[in-house]
């Protein structure tokens, strides 16, 4: 091969590139159309959220957590809540936990809809994106009814959630699920089983199970490599152990196990599982209060803890150190996108430039979550 190499070319992609899902930059060293490597350059969206936490106190930090990952803000809310509850030993009322599950699963649907829609758009299929956004818009309406916001929710509190479900919410939510489930089949027909689409995705960016674990990939990206691991199932938090749902894993149906198509299909399948969880949660939700009694001047005892939860982008870890005062000493968020970006350099070697877009989209990285 070395006989045929041409002069090496250095290309810049981003930070304002439509397929980078936020503000990301890549420095690509290419030989013709084949990449030698793509070096990710991140930090354009760094807002020092971890430093802000040290200044605003425990309750005050909740709205900031939305900005860690604005596509999955319910999970960042929940992660912060769970970490504080673990530090102070607070028990969330059961209705509060159910409200959290309902809000979080709707958010997961919204996040995955955006992920699969953008996946299509990134490789040139523009129409499915508009359909996915249409369905996501209705989820935004539902979540707006719950908490007044469409993107940065600030819905959860330390010890539960801020507001109970509004009257008639169950009927509306169920009506939406009845609407969504057949639509998912429509997406499959429109996009997933499209021959051109499969050709663009299959066998691109293959990640083996061992690599995925070594690079600390989480969530759908990990499961696509064949590792059956879901925090909701394996280290159950909240009330997830009360629901019956499956954990889809990659099968390598159209190419090799752990390729981009697997990562896409995992998200399609997870949406159906989320619908299942939502139906059960809406049917089983108990009565009672939604918020535990938590002092306004919240001072957890000195100590530290780590919690993990399954966000739309997978296992999200919150490491919180308290010194017993009203302000956290240190907060660290370990996010799925950060780890996923770390593997791109390795995967990009030998890939075509056009496939880099596929790779980024299939890993579903969200720039604010990388940079925080």
């Amino acid at each position, binding site marked *: 091969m070395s006989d045929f190499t041409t002069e090496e070319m250095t290309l810049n992609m981003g930070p304002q590139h439509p397929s980078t899902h936020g503000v990301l930059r890549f420095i690509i060293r290419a030989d013709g159309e084949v990449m030698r490597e793509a070096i990710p350059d991140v930090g354009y969206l760094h807002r020092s959220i971890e*430093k802000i936490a040290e200044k605003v106190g425990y309750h005050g930090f909740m709205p900031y957590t939305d900005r860690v990952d604005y596509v999955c803000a319910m999970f960042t809310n929940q992660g912060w809540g769970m970490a504080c509850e673990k530090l102070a030993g607070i028990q969330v009322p059961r209705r509060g936990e159910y409200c959290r599950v309902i809000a979080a699963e709707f958010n997961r649907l919204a996040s995955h809809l955006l992920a699969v829609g953008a996946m299509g758009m990134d490789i040139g299929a523009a129409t499915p994106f508009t359909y996915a956004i249409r369905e996501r818009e209705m989820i935004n309406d539902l979540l707006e009814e719950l908490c007044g916001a469409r993107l940065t929710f600030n819905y959860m509190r330390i010890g539960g959630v801020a507001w109970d479900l509004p009257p008639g919410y169950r009927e509306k939510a169920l009506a939406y699920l009845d609407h969504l489930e057949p639509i998912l089949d429509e997406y499959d027909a429109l996009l997933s089983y499209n021959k051109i689409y499969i050709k663009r995705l299959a066998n691109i960016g293959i990640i083996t199970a061992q690599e995925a674990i070594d690079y*600390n990939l989480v969530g759908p990206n990990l499961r696509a490599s064949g*590792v059956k691991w879901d925090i909701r199932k394996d280290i159950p938090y909240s009330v997830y152990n009360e629901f019956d749902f499956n954990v889809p894993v990659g099968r390598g149906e159209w190419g090799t196990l752990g390729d981009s198509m697997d990562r896409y299909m995992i998200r399609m399948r997870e949406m159906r599982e989320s619908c299942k969880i939502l139906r059960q949660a809406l049917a089983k939700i108990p009565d009672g209060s939604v918020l535990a009694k938590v002092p306004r001047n919240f001072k957890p005892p000195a100590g530290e803890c780590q919690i993990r939860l399954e966000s739309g982008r997978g296992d999200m870890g919150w*490491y919180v150190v308290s010194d017993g005062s009203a302000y956290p000493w240190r907060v660290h968020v370990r996010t799925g996108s*950060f*780890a996923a970006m770390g593997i791109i350099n390795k995967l990009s070697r030998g890939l075509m430039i056009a496939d880099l877009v596929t790779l980024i989209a299939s890993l579903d990285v969200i720039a604010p979550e990388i940079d925080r």
Partner: protein
Amino acid sequence: MNPVQVYERTKERFPAAVLEVVEKAIDPFAVIDPAAIVDVCRFLRDDLETAMDCLSNQSGVDYKDRIEVVYHLFSYRYRHSAVLKVKLPRDNPAVATVETVWNSANWMEREIFDLLGVTFEGHSDMRRILMPEDWPGYPLRKDFVEPLEYHGISTVRDSAIIRLDAKKK
């Protein structure tokens, strides 16, 4: 295995390297000698009983008198976890990289270097990751003072409310 059993097993293998085991904590942790951290990590990864195949989190904390680097280890095979810590001096903190043990450490160590100023010796790519290359200081240090401007761009926002607050004081 629960975390304490993991630390005891480490202690059997490296009696001098495990400086302290704190059991009475929400997540029990072990303090490791910085000089031995790579050996301990490699042992915990390769040992068949612990099999910590994943470094699930790595972060740093500034305690004003010292800087700690915290390693959250996890085993997908046995589904158990462990927390290791190394204590470093605040002046020129440095510790060997565990990038050679888990690849995921590459980016996490760059982040710690960027925000807390811990140098990881032997790291393949020790550059800033989130902040600009020429940013002064390490933002997550407790004594960090934000510069008033960066390349002529003011970092202070002029606001009527802030001016009023300043007047009251």
